[in-house]
């Protein structure tokens, strides 16, 4: 920019724009906050939700022993490429929301959806009691007592549920209980789409 002869009109215009800038910034910020508040109501904006780094990737390599007494086989990464979509569900007997989502998992299992279970940081006897009392929705069940496999998955709490498509890629992750609402609005359509 040259300093030669300041054009008074352009300078006045610039000054006006400058004086409007705070209002414009505040307005944009306000619109953003409004969108956030609306998103909080509809669930589109969730300050606490954390996305999974696994989406679009194959699950990590792992191999977990079975839970004695269930008769179910253990779980390893190879079991997750079955040519059809499936769910992987981390749970624990000590986790209250797991109890809430359990009926939904049972419903899915009855409808023939393959659900792989991983018992997270749970005493085997407690997991067994939990499943005996409430039913077993799982086709396979691995025991991750140290919680290391869970960290490879990027898990940050239980329950967490992952949807894996027929080619073995993670497509969706739910942190927290799968409620009926989530089941009908998200899980079932996704299973259909990736079938």
């Amino acid at each position, binding site marked *: 920019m040259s300093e030669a002869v300041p054009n008074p009109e352009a300078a006045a215009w610039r000054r006006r724009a400058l*004086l*409007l800038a*705070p209002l414009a910034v505040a307005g944009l910020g306000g619109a*953003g*906050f409004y969108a*956030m508040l609306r998103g*909080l109501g509809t669930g589109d*904006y969730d300050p606490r*939700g954390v996305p999974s780094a696994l989406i679009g990737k194959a699950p990590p390599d792992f191999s977990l022993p079975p839970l004695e007494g269930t008769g179910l086989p253990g779980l390893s990464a190879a079991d997750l490429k079955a040519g059809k979509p499936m769910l992987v569900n981390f749970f624990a007997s000590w986790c209250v929301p797991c109890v809430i989502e359990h009926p939904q998992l049972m419903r899915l299992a009855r409808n023939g959806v393959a659900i792989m279970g991983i018992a997270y940081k749970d005493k085997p006897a407690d997991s067994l009691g939990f499943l005996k009392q409430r039913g077993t929705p799982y086709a396979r069940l691995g025991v991750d007592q140290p919680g290391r496999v869970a960290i490879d998955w990027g898990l940050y709490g239980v329950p967490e549920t992952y949807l894996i498509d027929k080619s073995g890629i993670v497509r969706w992750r739910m942190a927290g209980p799968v409620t009926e609402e989530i089941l009908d609005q998200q899980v079932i359509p996704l299973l259909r789409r990736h079938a």
Partner: protein
Amino acid sequence: MIPEIGHFALALALALSLAQALVGLAGAQRADARLMGAASPLAVGVLVTVAAAFACLVWAYVANDTTVLNVVQNSHSLKPTLYKISGAWGNHEGSMLLWVLILALCGGAVAAFGGNLPSALQARVLGILALVALGFIGFILATSNPFERIWPPPLDGQGLNPILQDPGLAFHPPLLYLGYVGFAVTYAFAVAALIEGRVDAAWGRWVRPWALAAWSFLTLGIALGSWWAYYELGWGGYWFWDPVENASLLPWLAGCALLHSAIVVEKREALKTWTVFLALLAFGMSLLGTFLVRSGVLNSVHAFANDPARGTVILILLAIYIGGGFLLFAWRAQAMLPTGVFTPVSREGALVLNNLLLCSIAAVVLAGTLYPMFADLVLGEKFSVGPPFFNTAIFPLAVPLIGAMTLGPVMPWKRARLFPALQRLWWAALAGLAALVLCFAIEGYRVGPALGFGAAVWVILAAIADIADRIALFSRPRAAWARAKGLPRAAWGGALAHAGMGVMILGLAGMGLATDTLRLVKPGESVALAGLDYRLVGVADAPGPNFSARRATVEVRDGDRLVTVLAPERRSFPVARMTTTEAAIHTNWLADLYVVLGEERDGGAVLRIHHNPLAPWIWLGAALMALGGGISLSDRRVRVSAPAAKPVKAKGVKAGARA
């Protein structure tokens, strides 16, 4: 009955605020002296009614009136009385009421002490303050009524978060709110100036004490919160760059810039538009913090239980006050022309640089606080912005700020030369350099702490050099005392506040050298840290009023000499079902010896021991900064209500400015 009286008093306050706003603004517009004259008594009326409402809430807490929902949710009969009282503002509804009470206090103060303001300006300021009060009292009544009843009453309350049950935290919100809300007054002055289209030296002189007062309280409030985190959270940390902490830092930074630029307006009639903008910004940042903490858009440890409906109302209030302020700014600021001229190297130049850097730091803090939210909203991506970011991004801005704050005060107004200014400070610079080298020599290659020590010594000595120079301590020591007495208090206050900043940097640098250790210790065993021996004597039960505790006894020895006996505790609160750790701290001012008791197992106890060099100086520095603000405030030139303002001013200028 008493809660209903409180509710009624608040409704009455709403009506009185409406009247005050109308009378103040319309009266000033029509130059109707009778209308304008009514604004002051109305402001007192608002103060009385809001204070009555607040007293009613406190009464409900002290009496543990379990028919009041707010009391049930936040109090318990077993709580000590002090925390019953502080519990009244330890929750969303009550803290909003406290916010409004402080706003009403400010209105009352403008009414009581603003007698020498031009009556139109006073009426407008009162009118705008009333508009702010109107919005927030309406907000309380509509969405956050603290007097709501519950029937049948439960047997007792649900307690207060035990972590909040602490004297430091009891007084943290009132101080913080005194700061936040104090900026409402400078905001009101700015809006009034925009309406009148006039900003002059007198305006600067009226705004500055309010900016000073608000800033000093905010400094104390933030420091108290930080100190609380230090001793209560038991981690030895004092600042976490949590969004809620940032929300209090933003108005502090804006206010700090404001009170410096107001000096330029007062002395040189320059930077007027900018100062008005900062006054709007400081209050805007206060309101932004209120929104962030209470709306639920934010994800923080400290956030109140939140509700998007409340958030929407606060956002509407923000749109009115901030949006309205900036709209008026865009429309009217054109009218204000600068008159003072100065070159880049001058006192004004240093103050401009100070403003630029403070505002840039504020921009970084604001961006770091809001970026995760907006990235989530706009890009759908989740980021965390934590201490590593803030420390990295702010450091390069803080370094030149330290240069500006030391060189600025020793430079004359209008036009200066850098070399003479540096000449005045050569021994401070030398000492700072020596401190830096010394730190390297003793502590090894630790860049952060070394720079910190260097900067701290430089800032403290520069402030002393400034005063010594002004009273001609070295050139004419005999006249120094007389000159010292003649030096305006604003000069003393400014130097003290700057030295306080140096003291704080000293503490921060010291904390950079903190060490700690974590051990499982059996009774009789000891742990060595930083040359001291910490011996666990034993762990015993220690009952409290509404908690049970395990208390360890730890003897600290320096060789054979017993330094102190520390008693860290682990408290469990049955009502809140929480466990807290109470760190035991012994300070000898050179370092804090800080012991935390962890779990007990295998016949021993886990002890975490911190050696925090110079830690108390962080908060001492902040207290000095606030004290400096207070001393400046007591300057007669600044205190507009003083009848003898004129002569002192003339004298002060002679002694104070050397141009």
